[in-house]
């Protein structure tokens, strides 16, 4: 490394790496392991400390057709389930790669130290989840994300990757049309850094901190999405935000914290204030054949699962896809049948205490310690929480390269695999499948590039000046207040159920947040100053919120993670066949278009349910 001096005489350090990876969650670490294996020098830049990324919060499991638990499973069925769950807006090429490669990605994790729960035969056990035809999720109790990140961390630290912990990337540079590096500041000491890179991977996760009720960690402010957009990448499917049906709702301070779908996979039942198992009333037509229509049949299925037998009955409707269950809980509330604090009851207490504690230890502790509820004895109260964004950087399905040369994206930061709605468990397997591919291809490309491109000094000076600006402002608002209001606005106007006029209002409101953002004054110094850090996050939050509102306003139908009160049904003939794409014009204006994926080949089409495809409509 060496030093540079920007025009306003602020010192900064210059680093050079073949591959720079932004983000140290599952996708970032998996990419780093692969890129170092290819021989690249690798820097991993992360906002938190290593091992603390949002991946750690994942609970239920990682989906892969290992067929350890049910021999009928195969990549073909996993492919079909993923496409159906995504309401056919997925990039089928990614869904195919994911279904085929995820089993080996799981097996290799085990060789790196992951200890998944076992089958009676001693193999990796697999759990049932919404939308998956067979038990498919490798898991360790309800702490699979921790297992994934710790395993990758323990593998990664021996590969030679350099980790820059508690650094925030503010800007990605382009030189001669290629991404040439990025600018970051160190959150701990406020020092400034330019990373020159031959290739750059965004593994920055999601955006759900833009909503007041969410399951995301503080990191989920969406800078990764914004960085890609600002450097000119195409952003796809930004209207599709997954509201997980079961977040905690009481007490208020824990609102949004995730309650794993594993509860329902283990036989948890959803009821309303009248004690009715309401999910039987919400089975969509496309799933009618696959779900139980009586309580007795649902119970048969659960009994088989508990007894470790292959079920012959159809599954309980609680295991419908997340979009369906979240909307059902919302509808029950609208109809006046909500639980005491405005959600639904989720009950697993009918199973023996020791089984609940073994299968769902995290949930037991979470409710005991945060809500004083003993889930082995009484039902939980749950409601929808903003959980995942299906939209993100549009990438090449094979290489994960974005539309800007030299910039790659993997995991939640990328789009394509999940279409309009992600199946539970497909996120963790997404991270390792496409994290590996991104790492491999970014390293291969870097190997063919000689030396590092020059980065425009005036651009560096401008970014430094923008980064330090909040510290010299006085008398403005506390950035925390602006963020709180932004999140409340998004919850109200771009939430789980949307309407045209509210989306239009949101777009207007967002411009007023831009004015407020420019005036915030956090005070304090450059040393570990959360107020300053937060002031710098708001710009990204505004731009990604705008992407979401803009794409949601255009899509005049309801599908997966996008529901319009004014257009309540899916429109298969038009909207069901096209995906949104957002780009920034040279003028700085945000522009929305719609495109189609290439036609799906017949051999893969044959795996899908013909009735769902609405061909010729």
């Amino acid at each position, binding site marked *: 490394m060496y030093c540079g001096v920007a025009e306003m005489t602020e010192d900064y350090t210059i680093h050079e790496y073949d591959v720079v990876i932004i983000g140290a969650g599952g996708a970032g670490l998996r990419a780093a392991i692969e890129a170092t294996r290819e021989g690249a020098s690798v820097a991993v830049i992360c906002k*938190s*400390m290593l*091992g*603390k990324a*949002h991946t*750690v*919060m994942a609970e239920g499991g990682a989906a892969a057709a290992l067929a350890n638990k049910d021999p009928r499973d195969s990549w073909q069925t996993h492919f079909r389930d993923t496409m159906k769950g995504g309401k056919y807006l997925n990039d089928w090429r990614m869904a195919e790669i994911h279904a085929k490669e995820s089993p080996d990605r799981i*097996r*290799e994790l*085990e*060789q*790196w*130290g992951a*200890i*998944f*729960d076992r089958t009676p*035969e*001693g*193999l*990796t*056990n697999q759990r049932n989840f919404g939308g998956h035809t067979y038990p498919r999720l490798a898991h*360790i*109790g309800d*702490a699979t*994300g*921790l*297992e994934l990140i*710790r395993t990758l961390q*323990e*593998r990664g*630290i021996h590969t030679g990757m350099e*980790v820059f912990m508690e650094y925030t990337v503010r800007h990605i540079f382009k030189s001669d049309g290629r991404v040439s590096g990025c600018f970051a500041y160190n959150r*701990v000491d406020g020092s400034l850094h330019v990373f020159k890179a031959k290739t750059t991977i965004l593994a920055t996760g999601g955006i759900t901190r833009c909503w007041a009720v969410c399951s995301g*960690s*503080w990191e989920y402010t969406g800078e990764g999405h914004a960085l890609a957009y600002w450097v000119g990448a195409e952003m796809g499917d930004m209207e599709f935000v997954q509201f997980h049906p079961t977040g905690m709702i*009481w*007490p208020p*301070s824990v609102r949004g914290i*995730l309650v794993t779908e594993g509860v329902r996979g283990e036989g948890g039942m959803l009821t309303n204030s009248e004690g009715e198992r309401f999910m039987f009333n919400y089975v969509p037509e496309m799933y009618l054949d696959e779900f139980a229509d009586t309580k007795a049949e649902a119970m048969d299925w659960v009994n088989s699962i508990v007894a470790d037998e292959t079920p012959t009955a159809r599954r309980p409707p609680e295991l419908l896809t997340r979009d369906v269950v979240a909307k059902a809980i919302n509808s029950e509330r609208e109809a006046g049948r909500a639980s005491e604090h405005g959600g639904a009851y989720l009950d697993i207490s009918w199973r023996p205490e020791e089984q609940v504690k073994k299968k769902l*230890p*995290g949930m037991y*502790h*979470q409710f005991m*310690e*945060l*809500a004083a509820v003993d889930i082995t004895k009484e039902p939980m109260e749950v409601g929808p929480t903003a959980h995942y964004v299906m939209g993100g950087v549009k990438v090449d399905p094979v290489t994960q390269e974005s539309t800007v040369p030299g910039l790659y994206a993997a995991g939640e930061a990328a789009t394509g695999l999940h279409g309009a709605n992600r199946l539970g468990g497909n996120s963790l397997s997404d991270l390792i499948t496409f994290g590996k591919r991104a790492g491999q291809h970014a390293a291969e490309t870097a190997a063919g590039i000689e030396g590092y491109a020059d980065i425009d000094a005036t651009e560096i000076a401008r970014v430094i000046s923008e980064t330090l600006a909040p510290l010299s402002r006085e008398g403005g608002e*506390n*950035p*925390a*207040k602006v963020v709180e209001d932004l999140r409340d606005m998004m919850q109200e106007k771009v939430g789980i159920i949307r309407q045209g006029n509210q989306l239009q209002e949101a777009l207007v409101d967002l411009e007023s947040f831009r004015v407020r953002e420019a005036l915030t004054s*956090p*005070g*304090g110094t450059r*040393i*570990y*100053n*959360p*107020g*300053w850090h*937060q002031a710098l996050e708001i710009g990204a939050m505004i731009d990604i919120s705008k992407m979401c509102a803009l794409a949601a306003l255009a899509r005049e139908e309801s599908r997966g993670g996008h529901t319009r009160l004014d257009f309540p049904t899916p429109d298969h003939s038009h909207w069901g066949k096209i995906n949104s794409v957002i780009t920034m014009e040279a003028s700085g204006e945000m522009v929305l278009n719609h495109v189609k994926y290439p036609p799906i080949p017949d051999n893969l089409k044959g795996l899908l349910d013909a009735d769902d495809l609405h061909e010729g409509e």
Partner: protein
Amino acid sequence: MTEDVTFRVFRGEPDEEGVPTGEMVDYTVEMDEGMVVLDVIHRIQAEHAPDMACRWNCKAGKCGSCSAEVNGKPRLMCMTRMEDIMEETPEETPVVVKPMQAFPLTKDLVTDLQWAYDLNKKIPRLKGPEEMDWKFDQVEADRIQEFRSCIECMLCVNTCHVMREHQMFEEFAGPRFFVRLANLEMHPKDEDNRLEMIKDDFGLGYCNITRCCTEVCPAGINITDNAIIPLKERVVTEYYDPITIVAKKLGLRN
């Protein structure tokens, strides 16, 4: 149920020699039902002190970032309910929040944990068979899954007197890393032997089993009984057991 609560929080930075320098500052904010300590800290940041340093991530007890000492006891701020804190705090007395005391101070409630990352790199990784689809039973998994539930909050290290009182960060790996080492040593497919390192480089002998680490572990890992004592037993068997020594001399054991 809204009432006011006063927090007395450490605000400061290390001086040039690294000695924490600062003061305890009182902040009073309103408290809502069901709040945890971290919620109150966030409210103080939002209403009084945006630049107050505090680490956190998940706010759900899964990442182990928000370790601090609340009323003198090491805990995760996100999993400590205000209801319990108010019960233990005498009336008219502020709730005292300080950073972990065993680690070098960065600022306010944030400490420098670089030591942990450097030490982790010295532990040789898992060495198992090349072929995929390892077979082992749930009973074997159970034993190490307990260790896998560690969230690296470092509260155990902060509490251990070998670290806290004697600052033996060079000689002693501390409870967290004995949990990690026990995980590797007890892995049903691991083929490596790290006992010599555990004895010499990681200083297992310094632990005199006071069980303070186990008491503060928010993941409920029985660190002393399930990780440290079995490792001590293995070291004793390998290096100090007279029969083993004779057997080794006679070439009956490696």
